[in-house]
């Protein structure tokens, strides 16, 4: 079924949409473990699997906001435990600098989250998603970018 997702969401039925970039070896496996262990967490989160948190270009985060994400999460292995040794260290530098830049431009930095979730932390993953969904709900829909003038709508 092809879904038409170009309509503006009905404000009364709005549910937060969190786009999450999870590294394959730690955070994605941790989310998988949460599933295997039957921990429940809100369906607000939509996951993009990447090999490493170091694969996440800050422009991906911006693109997610442009396309309507209310919150973006990037989650990787704990520092020191990266499957690729240092990918998460590079992600830490670039993505935090990017968050500062967003904040400098006036975007609420609370909409862009980062976390370290290991493959054994199924419990942490489900608590984290529950917490972030609550926060996203409080922050409300992030319409700034989708409503901006762009090539498609100009």
């Amino acid at each position, binding site marked *: 079924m092809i879904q038409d997702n170009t309509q503006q969401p009905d404000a009364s039925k709005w549910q937060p949409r969190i786009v999450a970039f999870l590294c394959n070896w730690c955070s994605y496996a941790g989310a998988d473990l949460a599933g295997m262990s039957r921990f429940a967490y809100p369906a607000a989160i939509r996951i993009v699997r990447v090999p490493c948190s170091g694969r996440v270009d*800050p*422009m991906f985060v*911006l*693109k997610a906001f*442009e396309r309507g994400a209310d919150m973006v999460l990037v989650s990787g292995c704990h*520092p*020191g435990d990266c499957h690729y040794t*240092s990918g998460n*260290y*590079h992600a*830490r*530098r*670039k993505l*935090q*600098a*990017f*968050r*500062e*830049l*967003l*904040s*400098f*431009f*006036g*975007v*609420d930095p609370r909409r862009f*989250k*980062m*976390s*370290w979730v290991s493959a054994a932390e199924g419990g942490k993953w489900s608590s*984290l998603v529950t917490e972030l969904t609550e926060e996203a709900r409080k922050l409300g829909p992030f319409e*700034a*970018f989708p409503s*901006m*003038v*762009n*090539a498609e709508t*100009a």
Partner: protein
Amino acid sequence: MKENASATKSLRETASRLLSEEKVAAVIGYARRNGADMAVPVFVRRPEDAEQLVFDDGCFGNLAVYLAKSEVRALGKLGIVVKGCDLRTVNVLLREHVVDRDDVYLIGVRCAGVDDSGATRCAACESHDPDGCDVVVGDPVDQPKVNAEDRYKDAAEMETRSPEERWEFWRRELDRCIRCYACRQACPLCYCKRCIVEKTAPQWVESSPHLRGNIAWHVARALHVTGRCVGCGQCERVCPVGIPLNAVNQKMAKIVDEWFGFRSGQSPDEQGPFSTFSEDDPEIEIL
């Protein structure tokens, strides 16, 4: 316009000597042309043309931008006139293998500041006397002490505004961007053969001059100069709609200075902050 006779004389002599001794194929410097309110770039190929070279407070441009062009490098070994800010740019070009140290002859010139109205960069300059050149000309110049507050003044001023004020401000500014990419053309460190905005499969940045794509362009530009920009100020100077790019550049430079202790352009051997890391890098609210 304030002339600098001593520097001008030395530049002409140095260039003439280098060219007649065939030490360089060309000297890139500044000249005055009729009617221009600023000094313009000039490529001097013959010793007798060295007379065209000048140095005064209208020498705004960052001549290092020419070193990034392959057709210029193809001329052979290049002499280049560099102020302190330009020299720091050359250091970044060297560390990024754009040009070899053996292929440039750096003619440093002591500069007390140029007059391109609105430039805080000269007030915060710490390299009035460029260090690391093959030769330095010009009379000694005072080097006042500069601290971080002066260096990142424009960024700091922006940060005193509330997030809502900032959002309003930047929406308005970036809406005016016409995507002429003059900032990109003027920046010596924007030398990519194919810029990210020219990549269409996939399209990273929408190319039409509308706000959403404009923001994406300026975010990409800011990220790409992080840890590399030396604050030469050319991007803001050439912007036809007057977007305050220095503030953005300073903000990124402030981040890498405060978090990683890094300042760009100090030496050709440094490694940029985005290709290195420390296990003890600061973490701000990582869950």
